[in-house]
């Protein structure tokens, strides 16, 4: 068998996700963003809604999300993505609108915008990447940083007396009447990836069912910020992050 035979379409067992662009990703090897981007791109493609979807990118490592998924994008100011998405959805109610936000963006500077978009029950999907650290600015404490976890702004480890507690914001959002679906997923193992993809699809589908806001939190890794290898970061996440942020549906109506 020649190389050309192997490359025949009927022999393909895997191909690049159609809606991922050819741009080289700036994410560190081992980072969860790459997998989550890919899953979102796959779901949009499988639902056939490439031309019906508008994404809102955050400030943080994922600010360049618009470089990687082939749909219309807006880049929002830090924390303001849910307000931006609210307006898009209200003005273009037939479209699928989602935000993609990190823990600093969603759970610190954008807390008010997040809570109030959810409280209005705006029919958008919020994808929340929680890796417990500020990646882009160089590894500072996030609202979701675990107690005892070392960051460049908590060099002795997060101490609740000084820094407060790791914020379980998805649990808070589940209490709000406007949310219809709040779930916590991860992308560290194949079964988890498959489950996460289902959650993304459900969140997108909810956008047209007028049921309210969907929030999918991804308990993620930042191996660079955590100072670990990708493999160790996954193990550390499984042992420590999921203890504070247990996986599974928090709300599903």
């Amino acid at each position: 068998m020649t190389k050309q035979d192997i490359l025949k379409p009927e022999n393909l067992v895997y191909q690049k996700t159609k809606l991922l662009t050819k741009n080289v990703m700036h994410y560190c090897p081992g980072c969860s963003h790459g997998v989550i981007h890919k899953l979102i791109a796959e779901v949009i493609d499988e639902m056939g809604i490439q031309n019906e979807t508008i994404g809102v990118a955050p400030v943080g490592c994922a600010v360049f999300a618009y470089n990687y998924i082939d749909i219309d994008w807006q880049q929002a100011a830090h924390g303001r993505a849910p307000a931006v998405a609210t307006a898009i959805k209200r003005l273009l109610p037939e479209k699928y609108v989602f935000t993609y936000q990190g823990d600093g963006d969603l759970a610190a500077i954008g807390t008010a915008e997040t809570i109030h978009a959810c409280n209005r029950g705006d029919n958008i999907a919020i994808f929340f990447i929680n890796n417990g650290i500020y990646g882009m600015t160089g590894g500072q404490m996030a609202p979701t940083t675990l107690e005892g976890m070392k960051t460049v702004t908590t060099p002795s480890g997060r101490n609740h007396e000084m820094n407060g507690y790791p914020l379980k914001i998805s649990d808070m959002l589940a209490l709000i009447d406007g949310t219809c679906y709040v779930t916590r997923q991860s992308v560290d193992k194949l079964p988890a990836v498959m489950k996460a993809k289902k959650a993304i699809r459900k969140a997108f589908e909810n956008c047209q069912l007028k049921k309210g806001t969907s929030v999918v939190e991804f308990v993620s890794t930042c191996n660079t910020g955590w100072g670990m290898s990708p493999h160790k970061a996954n193990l550390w996440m499984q042992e420590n992050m999921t203890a504070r942020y247990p996986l599974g549906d928090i709300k599903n109506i």
Partner: protein
Amino acid sequence: MEEIKLMKGNEAIAHAAIRCGTDGYFGYPITPQSEVMETLMDEAPWNTTGMVVLQAESEVAAINMVYGGAACGKKVMTSSSSPGMSLKQEGVSYIAGAELPCLLVNVMRGGPGLGTIQPSQADYFQTVKGGGHGDYRLITLAPSTVQEMADFVDLGFELAFRYNNPAMILADGIVGQMMEKVVLPPFKPRRTNDEVRKQCPWGTMGKTDDRERNIITSLALEADVMEATNNRLQAKYRIIEEKEVLFEEQNCEDADYVFVAFGSAARLCGNAMDALREQGFKVGLLRPITLWPFPTKRIAELAQKAKGFMSVELSAGQMVEDVRLAVNGKVPVTFHGRMGGNIPSAEEIIEKFKENFNLK
């Protein structure tokens, strides 16, 4: 026959917004401009034109909703008053940086800080010199009547869409709150989505198969790329400065002395001018209608023959700096202003005028 109505400036803004085909209004209550959103909610245009009206959780959220709507190519606006406008500045900078058209309204009150709910013009610097971060400009319209409050909505949107730049109606609390007769603009239908796509091919209304994806961002990490963006913005600003200056003048042709004032202050100066003319002083009035771009050229022309200028403002003296730059030292430029919500009387302006120019 045209229909004449009696209403507040803030109400006129709301009615004009519905009539000129606005797609969305996003705001947060603050005195003295709350009537804008209250009137819109009362009119319920979502039942008639389909216009979206939404009370946001904060001024910060409201301006970012404007960003989201404007980035789709939709005709969107917000209104606020000074402290609220300060909160919106981050979003205004992003909107200017991403080159999005939208309409902002600031019905100014006295500051700094929480200040007072009484009228002021002390946000001139914030509006025409920056406010938010970075090198950007806002097309700034200064109404002095309720009629202009109504008319500048459509004009503001027109300028905003012509240049893909935010436009601001900078009104003082007097113009927002006072009632005058007004002829509202004729009804214009909202654009269809197809019309929006045609007018704003850069908008994020969902990709189509015949174009690449649209990305609205103000981010460019590489210095050369960011400098090129800035150069493009500056070139656009030079064209606006060349083409879009608006002002009104009275009695300037033979004037020895020229009042320069905008908004309510210009009305007061008009009264002072009339009285001084009766006393034999050759006084004129130049009222900038666009505060940016500023009528620099016209003021420089007048400075060739006038003996002096006097800027009258409801502030400690902000626009006077631009008058001085325009006059460029040729003749004296003086100032009178009141702060904290106080308003000078015509008599007070006349007295200060004589004192400033040593006249009897």
